[in-house]
């Protein structure tokens, strides 16, 4: 199944590498203090931060995982976009960003410190630091193994070379360099995958032809003929769609808990909006990001669905060569690269591989630039060496610490890439980690922003309880047919879910539920230590209303943009209902 690259493919990759490193090199002279390095000096225009916002999310796991999920679940995968991202992005922009940005917090953990107390910040900072390193390690591993099996690249070499390039440009130019490169990477990913979508669609006879080819495949699996090309139509019962989740689980588990947890509290995403030049720009960042986000399914999920049709056509090389696991099932992570190999000749093939590398780098740089900020401000500055009072000397010192943290972040990611090995569908596993960390965090931040009474003790306990109970739930349940303890049931098996996705959704719902109940309950029995004065700008009821922006044209106003995004999203949902 090896594919040979020609000189032109390598040349395109090298040009791309030179540009990403060049951007870092060019920006290095602007990195005079920690503020410039870790926060990009809060100077990014809304469109730059908005594209970076979505590009960070479009990491290698997203591209590989979502194409794989397209092959596995069909059009139902778009739930991760239209219901599982857009509403949360609109909510973040309109209701949360004013408090995040207005608080002057430099990170999400620091917001927790300002709103609650030191221990809540500490808990979140440490969990987040571990999570980012783990996540970038997993994605590095996934990519390197793919490149080894398909392109014949040495595993260690592709791991170290790609990590060192990311290190190069983030070390030199910090968050600015990460953001600028994410914009460049966004365009490379879109343009690099574009020929694949067109050729694959043309090959199967367009959307109509695809539907016709999928009908017998769908029926053979025991579903209705159009299950793989529709979204909500068969979500009445869990068993009638390949996702194995009914409408309530999708709407509440994915659309609310997982999605709001990820988009509204995950610092590696939110950090891009923090870097915007003004509060007005920061509010537009998630909305500008939402516009391409809505259309990404056509770029990565639709080819995955086409792969399902190709896979069931035993006469062609695609089906013959598709890598299978021990149980004879396709290894879904290979979907994207198998498609690239199937349709792209030398030249555009190099572009497609470069798109994969770019997606990996944007995700990894996101992790690294969030990690070094949390490490420097929330761990080092809080517990190891507090500010001395001399602003200039501090700025230089923390810049040095931030740079060293960048190196360590990358080295730790490489280490975790070597540890990460036997996980099935990477996306499912990542969902598990996110649901354990982000869902309780969303409950706590949401309560903190909209209920001024919420206390620090309550938030800390709520965060911890949500995390531990979710862990317990994961330990007591398994998805049907699971063979490893990684999938759950490592304490005892009390309940079996039909599919892993359903288990993940419910883990998240429990984490969120427990966390909310504990935080609200304890708030009534503990004393609020923060005065109204201190909570000014952090809590909805204690913050004066925004300046009037009605003199601006509608597309310059967050509310106007939000309506536009909402309408497009609803139209797409109805079109593919």
């Amino acid at each position, binding site marked *: 199944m090896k594919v040979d690259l020609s000189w*032109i493919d390598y040349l395109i990759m090298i*040009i791309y590498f030179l540009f990403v490193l*060049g*951007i870092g090199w060019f920006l290095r002279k602007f990195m005079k203090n920690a503020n410039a390095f870790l926060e990009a000096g809060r100077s990014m225009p809304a469109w730059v931060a908005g594209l970076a916002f979505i590009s960070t999310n479009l990491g290698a796991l997203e591209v590989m995982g979502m194409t794989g999920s397209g092959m596995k679940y069909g059009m139902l995968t778009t739930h991760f976009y239209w219901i599982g991202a857009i509403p949360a992005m609109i909510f973040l922009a309109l209701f949360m960003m004013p408090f995040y940005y207005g608080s002057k917090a430099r990170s999400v953990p620091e917001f927790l410190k300002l709103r609650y107390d030191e221990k809540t910040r500490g808990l979140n900072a440490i969990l987040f630091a571990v999570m980012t390193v783990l996540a970038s390690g997993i994605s590095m591993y996934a990519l390197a193994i793919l490149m080894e099996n398909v392109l014949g690249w040495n595993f260690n070499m592709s791991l170290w070379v790609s990590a060192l390039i990311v290190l190069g440009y983030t070390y030199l130019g910090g968050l600015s360099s990460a953001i600028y490169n994410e914009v460049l990477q966004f365009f490379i990913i879109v343009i690099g995958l574009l020929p694949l979508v067109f*050729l694959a669609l043309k090959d199967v006879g367009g959307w109509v032809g695809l539907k016709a080819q999928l009908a017998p495949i769908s029926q053979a699996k025991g579903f209705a003929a159009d299950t793989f090309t529709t979204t909500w139509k068969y979500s009445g019962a869990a068993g009638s769609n390949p996702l194995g989740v009914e409408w309530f689980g999708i709407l509440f588990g994915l659309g609310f808990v997982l999605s709001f947890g990820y988009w509204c509290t995950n610092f590696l995403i939110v950090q891009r909006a923090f870097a915007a030049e003004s509060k007005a720009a920061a509010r537009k960042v998630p909305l500008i990001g939402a516009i391409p986000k809505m259309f990404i399914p056509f770029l990565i999920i639709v080819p995955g669905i086409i792969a399902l049709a190709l896979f069931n056509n035993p006469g062609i090389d695609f089906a013959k060569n598709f890598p299978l696991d021990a149980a004879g099932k396709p290894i879904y992570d290979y979907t994207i690269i198998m498609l690239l190999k199937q349709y792209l*000749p030398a030249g555009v093939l190099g572009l497609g591989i470069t798109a994969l590398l770019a997606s990996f780098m944007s995700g990894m740089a996101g992790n690294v630039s969030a990690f070094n900020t949390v490490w420097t401000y929330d761990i080092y500055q809080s517990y190891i060496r507090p500010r001395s009072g001399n602003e200039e000397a501090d700025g230089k010192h923390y810049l040095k610490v931030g740079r060293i943290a960048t190196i360590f972040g990358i080295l730790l990611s490489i280490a975790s890439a070597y540890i990460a090995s036997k996980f099935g569908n990477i996306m499912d596993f990542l969902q598990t980690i996110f649901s354990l960390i982000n869902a309780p965090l969303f409950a706590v931040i949401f309560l903190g922003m909209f209920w001024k009474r919420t206390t620090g003790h309550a938030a800390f306990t709520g965060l911890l309880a949500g995390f531990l109970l979710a862990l317990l739930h994961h330990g007591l349940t398994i998805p049907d047919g699971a063979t490893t303890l990684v999938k759950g049931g490592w304490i005892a098996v009390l309940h079996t879910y039909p599919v892993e996705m359903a288990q993940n959704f419910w883990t998240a719902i429990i984490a969120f539920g427990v966390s909310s109940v504990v935080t609200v309950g304890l708030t009534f029995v503990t004393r609020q230590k923060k005065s109204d004065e201190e909570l000014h700008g952090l809590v909805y009821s204690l913050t004066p209303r925004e300046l009037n922006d009605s003199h601006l044209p509608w597309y310059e106003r967050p509310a106007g943009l939000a309506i536009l995004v909402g309408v497009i999203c609803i139209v797409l949902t109805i079109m593919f209902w």
Partner: protein
Amino acid sequence: MVDIRIPIGLMFTIIGILITVFGFATMSNTGMYQKSLGINVNIIMGILMLVFGLVMLYFARRKKKV
């Protein structure tokens, strides 16, 4: 600091030219384009990238003059 449209524009212009030229040079190689259903995608994508790169550079330049 720096206008990101400049490096983006430059990169797409360079890669665009490269792929277009490569597409024309391999035009007679029908075996190679069997994969892409007989379509010379290199020429199409090359020109598309070149145009995108030039548009980016144009906007970056126009902003500077203001």
